């Protein structure tokens, strides 16, 4: 129902009493499912009729993505212009299976290495990978008496891809962080590009306290098993026409910021000087 002039607002809490169920507004008239007809958002909406997500997302993952959303967009959902990132899509996957191997050793801090299986079916062919990280968080907010340096070894077990590096040893130091990001772009780029949608990897950590920086820190073992199995985050550039291309619209604005008349006068001047030269 429309309020008089100005803001037409649906009365709060009132059901949308339209004869046609909103879903039918999204269905093509002849019922044929022409992929190009509906932009992805409405395709998602029309596919969702009555379907509830099979799996509910992990609450920590949802919390992280809500914070990311607040960083990237206003309350009304408009992307913030100050952002310079090129990705217009961010996907977070929680492992659909994980297997713990050798239990961790509390004294030396060697963590149990863990096998992770990610199903990337939702990544479409038009989404190109720009960056990918494994996101670790803790079961509950732990505080480390001192900095901890970890060396991790990440191996891609499946698919066995000839041209992709299958292992990425590296290290990082973390303090009282809630989140730890491990960049795995070099490992995943070739796999996502070759439309591999099921990634099986194993990760193991070896963590030591930085005694050099904090000799006074008591040498008690730290329970690294507080680490929750990681989520996989993909930063993608959706190249479809319906996606928002930040760099394009910035360039386009700059190009068309001159009014059509101004552009025309500049070309006229250009032509005149070219004629003189001729």
């Amino acid at each position, binding site marked *: 129902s429309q309020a008089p002039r100005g803001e037409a607002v649906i009365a709060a809490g009132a059901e949308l009493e339209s004869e046609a169920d909103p879903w039918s507004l999204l269905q093509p008239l002849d019922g044929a499912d022409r992929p190009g007809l509906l932009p992805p958002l409405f395709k998602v909406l029309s596919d969702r009729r009555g379907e509830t997500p099979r799996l509910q997302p992990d609450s920590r993952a949802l919390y992280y993505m809500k914070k990311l959303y607040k960083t990237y967009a206003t309350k009304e959902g408009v992307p913030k212009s100050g952002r310079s990132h090129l990705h217009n899509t961010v996907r977070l996957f929680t492992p659909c299976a994980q297997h713990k191997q050798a239990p961790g050793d509390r004294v030396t801090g060697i963590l149990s290495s863990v096998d992770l299986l990610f199903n990337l079916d*939702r990544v479409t062919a038009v989404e190109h990978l720009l960056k990918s990280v494994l996101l670790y968080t803790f079961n509950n907010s732990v505080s480390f008496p001192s900095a901890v340096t970890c060396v991790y070894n990440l191996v891609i077990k499946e698919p066995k891809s000839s041209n992709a590096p299958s292992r990425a040893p590296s290290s990082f130091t973390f303090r009282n962080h809630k989140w730890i990001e491990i960049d795995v772009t070099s490992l995943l780029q070739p796999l996502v590009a070759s439309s591999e949608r099921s990634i099986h990897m194993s990760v193991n950590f070896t963590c030591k306290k930085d005694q050099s920086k904090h000799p006074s820190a008591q040498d008690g073992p730290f329970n690294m098993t507080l680490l929750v199995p990681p989520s996989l985050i993909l930063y993608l550039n959706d190249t479809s026409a319906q996606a928002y291309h930040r760099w394009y619209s910035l360039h386009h604005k700059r190009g068309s910021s001159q009014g059509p008349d101004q552009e025309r006068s500049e070309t006229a001047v250009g032509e005149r000087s070219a004629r003189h030269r001729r």
Partner: protein
Amino acid sequence: GQEIISPEFKKPLVPVSFNLSEYFKQFLFPQNECELHDFRLSFSQLKWDSWIVAPHRYNPRYCKGDCPRAVRHRYGSPVHTMVQNIIYERLDPSVPRPSCVPGKYSPLSVLTIEPDGSIAYKEYEDMIATKCTCR
């Protein structure tokens, strides 16, 4: 200070039947001129909030109103709009007058829960009308 006003000055300058308010009406902005209107909907009212996590409210806005004859600069309309108006007025009234439609849009960021339980942040082009034009 009593000036003698000669009788010929008492004659009304304009014919008595002339109605000034009618005359000035043509210079006023038309009341329901083509402009942008808000329409705030929330995904919970469309029952889409089970998987559209953000934004909670979406205001796609829309354009509504009459297109005045001289539209060019005020609406950024092409000269073609004037031509279409003239065709409608003088040549063929079956040709529709220019319509009030969105001329510019801004994108929308959406946070959704996918069927497999993964979470997606996506930015979609042309989801919020920001300017109207007559075409």
